[in-house]
């Protein structure tokens, strides 16, 4: 396929489009041509750094690579941290949202007169008065607005009330009368694909989204036909909710007819700004978005979602500040979701255990808003297969909107691939660890032929196998049953689309006469300690102390846009930009230190800039570190604060990927079907940890989300209206403290092979740990009882059915 050519104007437009940034971070392989064009352009226009200035050697850092308490935390420990749900403004109204009880329907008529008459109600928003022109259309296919008339999933917003208090707003919802025309709906992909299925979107495509071309290498059919060992299997995952502890929430205040401020629970404050600016046709400079603290995101809060839009519209209608906070069932129903996938895999293996032919067919639940739902990236990357075909097909259903959830489609693809690989290893008569090590592709992206900047998958597997005691513990399936308890171990490996590639980013690092360092970067802090990480990178690079840096908080009034906190891109992408800006600042400081100045016409330090280095707030002569001057004195000597600028671009021809592995040890109760996760070891190739504490946090949290996906999380739909029946934490099995192994048995292991591109060798980290747990646990269950579970989650009913089929119990 010929490469797409982009004009400078097109490139600049893409760089300015927040949705494109999100698409690139989450689905980089689908946008390679655009990324290449943009990278090439930015490399061309960016001034290069002074060749003599360099950052600390990663092996000799003073700040980076240490365990640092996070600056974000004290305010969260005292209860003083302000989240969007905590914001209260003078005159603020509270909103309540009416949601559709039907998965597919049209409102014939809506009567809000009784609601409007309720004392305390200030505005009611329905399809009759919702803005629909220009930017007020928040999406198309299907057309979407702040509230809907045509409903495509159960729980979709159809009306909103703003009232003096939350109780009155909720009361008013009960007074709204709707005449519904209920239409047939489907929440099961397989049903949607039947010839008899209703045409859900009027596309006459059999409920399929537009097809994309399969990825092909070599000749799968021929290689498969001649392979002595063949295997085939189908694997499914289901719809999951992010279940952030803080729901979708935004407070909006119109400050003037052309100026609006939003306090948002978001992963991307600049995305709220551009979203509202686009909606109301305002310049971005007339919208301010503030996100001091966000109670979790995990991919569900990537821009101006409906909470922000509804708050903004109601606020404009009433000229009062308005708070919208989804209630918990509403958040379960209408926030974005991890999409369900069906993967059918087929492979041929040589008699000595080499994968030679690999085929994957993936149906992904594009759901009500027809989002991307592909799960094939891990299939393309992790194992070498010279003859391969991978195909993705999206399916339209009436499930709630599909979106990015931590690692997006990769956990779905890895669920399928890693159970499949375990089965292949068994067919080949090999140990699952040995089979994987034999077949990993560690050098290149096989489809683009670009070289990985680093790859630590072998270390991940070797260190994990050692930590769990693979050699001692792994046994034949079902060979460790004692009484009613069966013991097993299993593993999974993962290659991730995230934590690596994203668009060029730039940042500014300033230092003032007091030596205070101000990092202008706009990563919104959602719990990962992004502010601490950026402070560590900046101060290490400038040669200052950590205490000299200001923390940065998400407020578009003060920070520039360095992209969203998603795609595991913060450290690698924004962090590289911060490093480069800090290097630029360091170079300027050293030049200024050696300039003759004052009446004596003497420099602060004798020598050339390249003879100097910086550390702990001083510039000094490398040859004689006792000859030194404080950085703040250099700044003072110049008479004004100094500023470094930096841009990060991935070098040409290089590809990045992050790798991870997981090892699980389980006990299965043959009478109850209950699984106890005794031990879980997560090994992650993060290149290099900036903050060891933060790195461990990401691995533990990511693994925890994977454990939830493995052992019970599943949003279920039932009844004639295809309603989500467990849209709450009581019935949606999110793991508690009791569902994880004990402290010593739940271990993160940092694999640090370094990386040629990221700051101090770091790569991204937040997402990769999420993918290995589900298949690792499924494989451990197989090792325990000899029962294969192909459909996530692994629940007791499926285990018991397998046990019965196996004859382990009557």
């Amino acid at each position, binding site marked *: 396929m010929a490469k797409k050519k982009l004009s400078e104007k097109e490139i600049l437009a893409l760089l300015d489009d927040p949705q494109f940034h999100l698409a690139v971070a989450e689905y980089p392989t689908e946008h390679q041509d655009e990324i290449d064009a943009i990278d090439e352009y930015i490399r061309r226009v960016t001034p290069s750094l002074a060749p003599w200035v360099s950052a600390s050697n990663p092996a000799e850092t003073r700040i980076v690579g240490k365990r640092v*308490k*996070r600056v*974000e*935390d*004290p305010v*969260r*420990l*005292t*209860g*003083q*941290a*302000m*989240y969007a*749900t*905590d914001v*209260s403004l003078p005159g603020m109204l509270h909103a309540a949202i009416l949601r559709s009880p039907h998965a597919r329907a049209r409102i014939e008529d809506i009567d809000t007169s009784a609601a409007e008459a309720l004392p305390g109600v200030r505005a009611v928003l329905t399809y009759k008065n919702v803005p629909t022109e220009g930017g007020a259309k928040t999406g198309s296919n299907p057309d979407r607005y702040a509230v809907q008339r045509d409903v495509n999933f159960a729980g979709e917003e159809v009306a909103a009330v703003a009232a003096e208090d939350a*109780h009155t707003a909720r009361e008013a919802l009960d007074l709204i009368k709707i005449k519904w025309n209920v239409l047939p709906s489907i929440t099961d992909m397989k049903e949607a694909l039947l010839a008899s299925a209703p045409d859900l979107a009027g596309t006459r495509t059999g409920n399929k989204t537009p097809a994309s071309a399969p990825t092909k290498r070599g000749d799968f059919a021929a290689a498969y036909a001649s392979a002595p060992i063949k295997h085939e299997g189908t694997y499914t995952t289901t719809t999951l909710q*992010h*279940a*952030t*502890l*803080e*729901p979708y929430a935004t407070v909006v205040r119109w400050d003037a007819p052309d100026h609006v401020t939003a306090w948002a629970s978001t992963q991307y404050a600049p995305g709220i700004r551009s979203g509202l600016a686009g909606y109301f046709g305002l310049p971005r400079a007339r919208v301010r978005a503030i996100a001091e*603290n*966000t*109670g*979790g995101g*995990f991919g569900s809060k990537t821009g101006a979602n409906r909470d922000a839009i509804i708050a903004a519209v109601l606020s404009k209608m009433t000229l009062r500040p308005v708070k919208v906070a989804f*209630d*918990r069932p509403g958040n379960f129903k209408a926030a974005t979701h991890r999409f369900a996938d069906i993967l059918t895999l087929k492979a041929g293996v040589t008699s000595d255990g080499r994968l030679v032919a690999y085929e994957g067919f993936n149906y992904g639940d594009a759901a009500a808003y027809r989002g991307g739902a592909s799960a094939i990236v891990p299939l393309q990357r992790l194992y070498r297969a010279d003859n391969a075909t991978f195909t993705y097909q999206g399916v339209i259903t009436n499930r709630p909107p599909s979106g990015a959830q931590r690692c997006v489609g990769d956990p779905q693809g890895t669920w399928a691939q890693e159970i499949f690989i375990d089965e292949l290893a068994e067919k080949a008569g090999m140990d699952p660890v040995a089979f994987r090590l034999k077949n990993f592709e560690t050098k290149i992206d096989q489809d683009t032929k670009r070289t990985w900047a680093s790859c630590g998958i072998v270390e991940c597997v070797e260190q994990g196998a050692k930590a769990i005691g693979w050699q001692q513990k792994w046994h034949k399936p079902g060979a460790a049953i004692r009484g009613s308890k069966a013991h097993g171990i299993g593993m999974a490996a993962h290659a991730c689309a995230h934590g690596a590639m994203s668009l060029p980013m730039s940042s500014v690092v300033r230092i003032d006469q007091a030596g205070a360092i101000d990092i202008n970067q706009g990563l919104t802090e*959602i*719990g*990962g*300690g992004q502010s601490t990480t950026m402070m560590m990178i900046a101060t290490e690079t400038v040669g200052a102390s950590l205490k000299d840096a200001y923390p940065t908080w998400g407020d578009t009034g003060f920070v520039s846009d360095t992209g969203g906190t998603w795609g595991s891109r913060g450290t690698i992408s924004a962090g590289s930009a911060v490093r480069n800006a800090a290097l630029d600042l360091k170079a300027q400081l050293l030049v200024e230190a050696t300039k003759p100045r004052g009446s004596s016409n003497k420099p602060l330090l004798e020598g050339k800039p390249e003879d100097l280095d910086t550390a702990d707030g001083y510039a000094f002569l490398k040859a004689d570190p006792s000859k030194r001057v404080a950085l703040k004195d250099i700044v003072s000597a110049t008479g004004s604060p100094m500023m470094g600028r930096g841009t990060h671009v991935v070098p040409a021809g290089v590809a990045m990927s992050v790798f991870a592995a997981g090892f699980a040890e389980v006990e299965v109760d043959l009478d109850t079907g209950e699984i106890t996760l005794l031990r879980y070891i997560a090994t992650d190739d993060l290149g290099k940890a900036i903050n060891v*504490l*933060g790195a*461990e*946090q990401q691995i*533990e*949290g990511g*693994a*925890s*989300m994977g*454990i939830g996906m493995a052992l019970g999380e599943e949003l279920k739909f039932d009844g004639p209206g295809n309603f989500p029946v467990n849209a*709450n*934490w*009581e019935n949606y099995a*999110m793991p*508690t*403290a*009791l569902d*994880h192994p*004990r*402290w*010593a048995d*739940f271990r993160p292991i940092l694999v640090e092979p370094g990386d040629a591109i990221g700051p101090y060798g770091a790569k991204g980290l937040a997402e990769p740990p999420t993918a290995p747990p589900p298949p690792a646990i499924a494989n451990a269950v197989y090792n325990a009882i000899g029962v294969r579970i192909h459909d996530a989650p692994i629940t007791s009913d499926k285990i018991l059915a397998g046990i019965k089929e196996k004859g382990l119990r009557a």
Partner: protein
Amino acid sequence: MAAKGRYSRRTFLKGAGATAAGTAAVACGTTGIGPGPVTAQPVAVRVGPAANAPGTQLSRVTVNGTLYEAAVDARWTLAEMLREQLGLTGTKVGCDRGECGSCTVLVDGKPVLSCLTLATEVADKQITTVEGLAVGGKLNPLQEAFWETGAVQCGFCTPGMLMSATALLAAKPKPTEDEVRLALSGNLCRCTGYRKIVEGVLVASGQAPKA
């Protein structure tokens, strides 16, 4: 963690005045973990709409040592009273239906879900919220241990975790790891996998998790 993290059952409230006496049910102290120093309030702080407004009920309640005389909306939960009326937004509402534990506060020393408790139910009781933990503007040993061990990520579940842990440590100064896990099992967290939270509670109790 240094010995300052050691938990103490001793209370410092002895003789702190009639208003504060009831808080002795919460184990706390200048070297321990619990609410900050309590000042006897000669006059209650009056909050809320006029006491005789329709649908309101007058309630005297002590929160973090301050006695309030609050005219509360009869429909309000304790969480709403704390957040909306007293401005104590440290208590978080994750679900408003008793599932997540984010709104946990101590009522007479016992952990209670403030979203399932009516404001009118706590009349004449002693409430401790997360805002009552730091002593003299300094983190208390449990908060310090949470900071040190990295028990906080997004922080939304943190206040509830701290309150459940405070109640546990008051009842059992040296809990086992399993006791900590059980005590925190009503508090959901989506960021941490609970590992560093469990570690934080153990460190605060002067113990290290078993390697």
